[in-house]
């Protein structure tokens, strides 16, 4: 059988040529069609997904109290009196994680002293100064003796000195030899302690000269802001997860655009809070846009 076909092909060369031309043409046609069909399928999928999206804004409200995450030190502490015994500043970035940084009072008896300070930076892009109502400082520490109080202060950028003037509490904290939480609020004097770029310096020191050489373990030191802002409630009633990428606050005089990056699962109601957004007075419209190109609108006054 093979011999017969081979003989025929050898005799009729035009037949071989025709077969080659047809085969190559078929390859080209299949390449074109498959490419176009596959791409068309992909784009149809995109359009189908867009149709399936169903997101809406169910509520928009101004809120007066938003607490930011804790901002922690990003470099080693400055030790003015005493010394660092162990650990690093990174051990003070997360509370209750089993790691801490240890300091010890200086060596000159009977005038043992400890004074450490760290620099922290508030995220003013998320929490602009105009939205902040106050700042809180929190310390989690453990002292080896209970003989003296310990104090938190912040650097006053106007007076160029560490101070606790205007704090809600200036009496300091008496340790218990166990892990203690010590927090202060800067009340309405916070602005003196926050530089225009969001930098804060926080100092932790002992009460004064004493005859006991104390060791201090610092598990956590952080600051956070209490700010006002706006809360948006998004509802996804579609079958697909929505990726919200754009937020608009529109009134008669301004169309303000914000980039956002929020995912709302199918069937989920999600509260999204922004401290850098203030709702305008009078009538306004809030619009949110998904990555697939759908829009949800909320109007209020």
């Amino acid at each position, binding site marked *: 059988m093979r011999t017969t076909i081979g003989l025929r092909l050898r005799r009729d060369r035009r037949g071989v040529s025709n077969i080659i031309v047809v085969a*190559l043409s078929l390859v*080209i046609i299949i*390449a*074109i069609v498959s*490419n*176009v069909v596959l*791409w*068309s399928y*992909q*784009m149809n999928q*995109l359009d189908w997904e*867009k149709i399936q999206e169903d997101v809406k804004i169910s509520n928009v409200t101004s809120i007066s109290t938003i607490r930011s995450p804790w901002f922690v030190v990003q470099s080693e502490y400055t030790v003015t009196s005493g010394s660092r015994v162990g650990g690093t500043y990174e051990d003070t970035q997360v509370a209750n994680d089993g790691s801490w940084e240890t300091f010890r009072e200086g060596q000159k008896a009977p005038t043992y002293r400890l004074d450490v300070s760290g620099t922290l930076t508030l995220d003013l892009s998320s929490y602009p100064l105009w939205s902040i109502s106050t700042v809180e400082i929190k310390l989690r520490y453990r002292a080896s003796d209970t003989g003296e109080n310990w104090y938190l202060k912040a650097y006053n950028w106007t007076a160029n000195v560490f101070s606790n003037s205007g704090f809600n509490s200036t009496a300091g904290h008496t340790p218990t030899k166990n892990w203690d939480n010590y927090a202060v609020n800067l009340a309405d004097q916070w602005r003196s302690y926050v530089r225009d770029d969001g930098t804060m310096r926080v100092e932790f020191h002992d009460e004064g000269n004493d005859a006991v050489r104390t060791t201090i373990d610092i598990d956590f030191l952080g600051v956070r802001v209490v700010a006002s802002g706006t809360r948006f409630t998004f509802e996804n009633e579609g079958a697909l997860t929505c990726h919200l*990428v*754009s937020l*608009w606050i*529109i009134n*008669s005089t301004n*169309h303000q*655009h914000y980039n956002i990056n929020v995912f709302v699962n199918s069937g989920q109601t999600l509260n999204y809070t922004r401290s850098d957004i203030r709702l305008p007075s009078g009538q306004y419209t809030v*619009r949110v*846009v998904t*990555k*697939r*190109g759908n*829009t949800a609108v909320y109007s209020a006054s």
Partner: protein
Amino acid sequence: MRRLTRDKRGITPVLSNVLLMAIAVAGMSIAITATYVITNNLRETMGERFIVEDVWFKTGEIAIYLRNTGKIPIKVAAVYVNYTAQSFTSLELDVDSHGWLNVTYVWDSDSVYHIKVVTSRGAQVADYHRSPT
């Protein structure tokens, strides 16, 4: 080599075969290039998607905020307001990018305008927008 120089009849089939092969290769190259160009153009045209996020009537102009939601970059080629082409600032948007398209136009308050944005590959988005009072 000696055989070839003695038998001149053997050169003709070799040359013809080489020429045929060259022609076949050239033909295939042209066909493949044409295939690529045709499919690429089709893909690009099919892959264009964009939306108008916002239309802002400003003094002496209409600002249109566009977002590219397709799979290829787009370039705005024309903007029509009430079916008349208008001048605008050039705008090219990569995939997932967005930006303002400023159209020079003196509009009247509390009027409805039909605004159409057309890309260089022919995709278009059109809608009616009411100007503020």
